[in-house]
């Protein structure tokens, strides 16, 4: 037998990255700002989206892609707000991949402003998969503790913004916002950070203003 070395040098996430790049190019050209929301389960992604729908609409339009292992519950909550929503049930998979979004892309209505992708609740696996988003947002809720960024560096390193959620629960929770912010900024000094409560509305306006300014800059760069 003859043993032969075959040099390959291929990115194992290359096919996902290629699909993601195509989605980003297409949706950005259509003037749609795509956001990928990543967090642990129960950190308030769906509640944040419900609140955003009240604040952004009707001046702006939005749609939501919900990723969950099972059930249509999250999409139903969003539709109850009058917002178009698609549910992707991964059937066990711990993250969304770009081709799952790509399959839905033709159904995304024209004239849309914001497309939010709510990833499967998981602070680990979704971090490795580009979905074609323009902005990646990681959520960290106050009950989870302020020590998470250094324990889960990949997701904080690859995100554009950090939302500390459920700030209305501090006190009584021993969550130190400054520590959480500092830990996250140590990993990624370019992170935009926000502290919000979807329940009380605190900090939400700053986040909405940021989203709107990012939408305008996306449109300027594609004008």
């Amino acid at each position, binding site marked *: *037998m*003859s*043993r*032969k*070395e*075959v*040099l*390959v*040098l*291929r*990115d*194992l*996430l290359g*096919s*996902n990255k290629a699909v993601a790049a195509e989605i980003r190019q297409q949706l950005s050209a259509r003037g749609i700002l795509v956001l990928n929301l990543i967090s642990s389960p129960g950190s308030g992604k769906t509640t944040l989206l419900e609140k955003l729908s009240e604040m952004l609409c009707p001046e702006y339009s939005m749609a939501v892609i919900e990723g969950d292992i099972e059930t249509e519950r999250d999409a139903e909550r969003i539709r109850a707000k009058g917002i178009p929503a698609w549910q992707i049930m991964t059937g066990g*998979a*711990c*993250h969304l*991949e770009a081709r799952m979004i790509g399959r839905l892309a033709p159904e995304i209505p024209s004239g849309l402003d914001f497309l939010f992708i709510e990833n499967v609740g998981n602070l*680990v*696996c979704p*971090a*490795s*998969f580009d979905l074609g988003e323009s902005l990646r947002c990681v959520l960290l809720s106050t009950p989870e503790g302020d020590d998470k960024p*250094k324990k889960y*560096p*990949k997701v904080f*390193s690859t995100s554009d913004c950090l939302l500390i959620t459920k700030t209305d629960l501090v006190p009584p929770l021993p969550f130190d916002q400054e520590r959480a912010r500092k830990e996250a900024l*140590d*990993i*990624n*000094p370019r992170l935009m950070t926000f502290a919000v409560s979807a329940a009380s509305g605190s900090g939400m306006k700053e986040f909405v203003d940021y989203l709107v300014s990012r939408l305008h800059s996306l449109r300027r760069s594609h004008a």
Partner: protein
Amino acid sequence: MHELSIVANLFEILNQKAKEKKAKRILSVTLQVGRLSGVVPELLRSSFDIYKQDTLAHNADLVIQEVPFKVRCLACGTEMTKEDFIMVCDRCRSTELEILQGTELFLLKMDVEA
């Protein structure tokens, strides 16, 4: 456990390359895995062992070269390895650092029986 889906993708590339090279068997597969690639080498190994059954790679060894996380300071030019991923220059404390390596997840090469 996204390692399974990454290994599924690895096998797509391996099968295609093995066919191109008319390989009879795949003897070893070498990956480069960055410290901040977001995957766990141990889980890549167990996923690889599941996937390799009934393929040309059924007896193949998986070699994983771990790549340290290295950055360069844009302010003072120092290059350094960061075990803790903290993006602050060890020398001048600047936070303007550029990642040089450590986020990759590459199939480097495979050894085949031709």
